[in-house]
C-alpha cells in the first residue's frame, strides 16, 4: 500500500492570513470608533507541520497611535513565555520568531501561539498543528449479526497517535461490481468501529478497507474480502436453565433454547458451556456440545453453587465452509448441587449422550457399577438411567448406614457394615 501522501502543510504555511480588521467587522460587529486599539497579525495563520520541523513566524503590528512598535512585544506558546533569544525584531513593526524541532500538538484544537504587547495584552494569535501523517490501519475484523448487518473493527496504525485529529472512514464495495460505499455509523463497538445496518448481499464477496486522513496526509489499509455468510454470529442462547439431577450431588443439568433469529438455519450449530464455582473467577469450558440444546455437567462438587453460561456458533450456515463467530455468552444462570457427606470429586465435564464414560471420577464409579453388574447380571441392555438409579441408591444407603450406626446393631444393614460388602437394593 502507498505510504501517506504529503498533506496540505506547505500550502497552509504559504497561505496568506485573512485580513483581521475585515474579520472583526463581519464576525464581531463594527469596531468601536476612535478606540485607538492596536491590532496585529501573525503569519503564518494556523500552519500544519511535521513533528521535528521548524517554524518561522512573524507578528506585524498595525494601527495607531504611532509609536506602536515591535519593541517590547513577546511571544507565548500554550501560555508559556518563549525565550527572548528565539525572537528578533525584523523592523519597526514586526517581531519574528524561530522555533525548531517542534513537539506534537498538545491539544487537537491546535497549540496557541500568541503575540503580546509590552503590557501583556494579547495582540494576535495563531494555532499550530504539529503531528504526523496517519499510518496504515490494519487488523480489520467484521461480523454479521444474524446475516442482517455488518460491524467492522480495526486497529489504527502507530496506535493512532498522530497528535492531530485523524478521521477514519470504513469503505466497502461488492467485489465484482458496484461503487464504493462509506460506512456512516461509527464508534458502535469501540473507537475504531463502524456498523453497516442494511442493504447487504449474501453469497457474494465484499471488499472492505479503512482510510485514515488528517491534515498531514492519508493512508489506506489492506483490503479485506469476505462473504457475509462466513462471518455470521448470533444472539446467545436464551432460556438457559440449570437444575439438579435428582439427588445426584455431583451433577447439574443444563438446558437452553436455540437462538431464535437463526433457529431454522442452525443445522450444524455448535455450543459451548462454561461454568464456575460461585466464589471463583476461573471458568471451566465444555467444548464438545455440538448441536444439542441440553447437557449434563458431572463431577461437580456437592453442596456448591455453580454459575453457568452458554454460547452458540452458527457455523455452516447456508453451506458456508468457514467457522462462524461465537455469540456472546448468555447471562449467567446459577444452581447448586445437593449437599453430601462424602467428599465430592474434583473436576467435571458434560456427559454426552450415548452413555460413554467421560472423565476420571465418573469412570471409576462406572467401573464399580459394571463390576457389580457382572456379579448380578440379569439384564444386558443398560442405560444411564439405570446407572443413575444405582448411584442414588448408593448415596441413600450410605446415609442410612451412618444414621443407623448406633440404632441397628444387628440386621441386614448391620451385617453389611460388619464385613464391608455393598448392600444390595431391594429392587432395581
Amino acid at each position, binding site marked *: 500500500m502507498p505510504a501517506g501522501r504529503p498533506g496540505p502543510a506547505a500550502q497552509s504555511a504559504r497561505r496568506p*492570513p*485573512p485580513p*483581521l480588521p475585515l*474579520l*472583526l467587522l*463581519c*464576525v*464581531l*460587529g*463594527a*469596531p*468601536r470608533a476612535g478606540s485607538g*486599539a492596536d491590532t496585529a497579525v501573525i503569519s503564518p*495563520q*494556523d500552519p500544519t507541520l511535521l513533528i521535528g520541523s521548524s517554524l518561522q513566524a512573524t507578528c506585524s503590528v498595525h494601527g495607531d497611535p504611532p509609536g506602536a512598535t515591535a519593541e517590547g512585544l513577546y511571544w*507565548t506558546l*500554550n*501560555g*508559556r513565555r518563549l525565550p527572548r533569544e528565539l525572537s528578533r525584531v525584523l523592523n519597526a513593526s514586526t517581531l519574528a520568531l524561530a522555533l525548531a524541532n517542534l513537539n506534537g500538538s*498538545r*491539544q*487537537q*484544537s*491546535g*497549540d*496557541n*501561539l*500568541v503575540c503580546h504587547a509590552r503590557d*501583556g*495584552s*494579547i495582540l*494576535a*494569535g*495563531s*494555532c499550530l498543528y504539529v503531528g504526523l501523517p496517519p499510518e496504515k490501519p490494519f487488523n480489520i475484523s467484521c461480523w454479521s449479526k444474524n446475516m442482517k448487518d455488518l460491524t467492522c473493527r480495526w486497529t489504527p496504525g502507530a496506535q493512532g497517535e498522530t497528535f492531530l*485529529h485523524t478521521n477514519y472512514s470504513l469503505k466497502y464495495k461488492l467485489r465484482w461490481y458496484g461503487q464504493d460505499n462509506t460506512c456512516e455509523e461509527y464508534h458502535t463497538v469501540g473507537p475504531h468501529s463502524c456498523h453497516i445496518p442494511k442493504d447487504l448481499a449474501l453469497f457474494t464477496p465484499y471488499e472492505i478497507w479503512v482510510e485514515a486522513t488528517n491534515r498531514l496526509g492519508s493512508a489506506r489499509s489492506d483490503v479485506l474480502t469476505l462473504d457475509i455468510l462466513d462471518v455470521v454470529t448470533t444472539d446467545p442462547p436464551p432460556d438457559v436453565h440449570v437444575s439438579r439431577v435428582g439427588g445426584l450431588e455431583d451433577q447439574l443439568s443444563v438446558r437452553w433454547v436455540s437462538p431464535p433469529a437463526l433457529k431454522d438455519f442452525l443445522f450444524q450449530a455448535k455450543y459451548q458451556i462454561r461454568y464456575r464455582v460461585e466464589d471463583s473467577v476461573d471458568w471451566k469450558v465444555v467444548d464438545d456440545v455440538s448441536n444439542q440444546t441440553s447437557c449434563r455437567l458431572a463431577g461437580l462438587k456437592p453442596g456448591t453453587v455453580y454459575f453457568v453460561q452458554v454460547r452458540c456458533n452458527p457455523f455452516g450456515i447456508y453451506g458456508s465452509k468457514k467457522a462462524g463467530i461465537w455469540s456472546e455468552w448468555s447471562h449467567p444462570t446459577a444452581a447448586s448441587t445437593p449437599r453430601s457427606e462424602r467428599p465430592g470429586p474434583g473436576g467435571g465435564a458434560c456427559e454426552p449422550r450415548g452413555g460413554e464414560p467421560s472423565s476420571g471420577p465418573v469412570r471409576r464409579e462406572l467401573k464399580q457399577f459394571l463390576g457389580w453388574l457382572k456379579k448380578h447380571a440379569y439384564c444386558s441392555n443398560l442405560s444411564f438411567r439405570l446407572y443413575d438409579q444405582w448411584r442414588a441408591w448408593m448415596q441413600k444407603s450410605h446415609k442410612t448406614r451412618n444414621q443407623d450406626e448406633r440404632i441397628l446393631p444387628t440386621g441386614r444393614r448391620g451385617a453389611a457394615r460388619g464385613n464391608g460388602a455393598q448392600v444390595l437394593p431391594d429392587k432395581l
Partner: protein
Amino acid sequence: MSRREGSLEDPQTDSSISSLPHLEAKIHQTHSLARLLTKYAEQLLQEYVQHQGDPFGLPGFSPPRLPVAGLSAPAPGHAGLPAPERLRLDAAALAALPPLLDVVRRRQAELNPRAPRLLRRLEDAARQARALGAAVEAVLAALGAETRGPRPEPAAAAAAAAAAAGVFLAKVLGLRVCGLYRDWVSRTEADLGQLVPGCPA
C-alpha cells in the same frame, strides 16, 4: 361589595386576584430555572476553556473583549433600571444567544470533534437560552409589560465569516459567547430574584 354570582364581576379584577398566585409561581419557577442555567453556564465555560488549551483557562488570561454582533454584556447601570426594562433586556439577550451558540458549536465540532460533552453542552445551552428567554417573556406578559422588540437576524453571515476566521480568533470568539451566555443567565437570575418575595435583592 360585589357578589360573585353569575358573570357580573369585573373580569379584570377577578383575573388579577386569581392570577397573582399564578404570576408568583411563574416568577419562582423562572427564577429557579435561571439559577440552574447559571450553574450549567459556568460548567460550559470550564469545559470550553479546557478544550482550547492554555492560555485559555489560566488565571489572569485576558483575551481581547471582542464585540459580538447583536449582543453586548449587561451594562453597568442595568441593575438600576425598572424591573420590566431589566427583564426586557434579559429576554432580548437570551433570544440573541442561541444562534451565536450554534455558530460556536459548529466551529468547535471542527476544532474538537472528539469532545462530545463540550458539543452537547453548547447544543444544550442554545436550547436552554431559548427556554429561559421564553419564560422571561411569559413573566413580562403576565406583568402586563411589553415584551422585547424585533427579533435579531439569524447569524448566517456571522456563521460564514466565523468559519473563515483564524482558529485563535474563533477560540476567542467562542469564549466571548460562552461568557456572555453566563453573564446574561446570571443577570436574569438576579433580576428575577428581586421579584421573588423573600428573596434578597
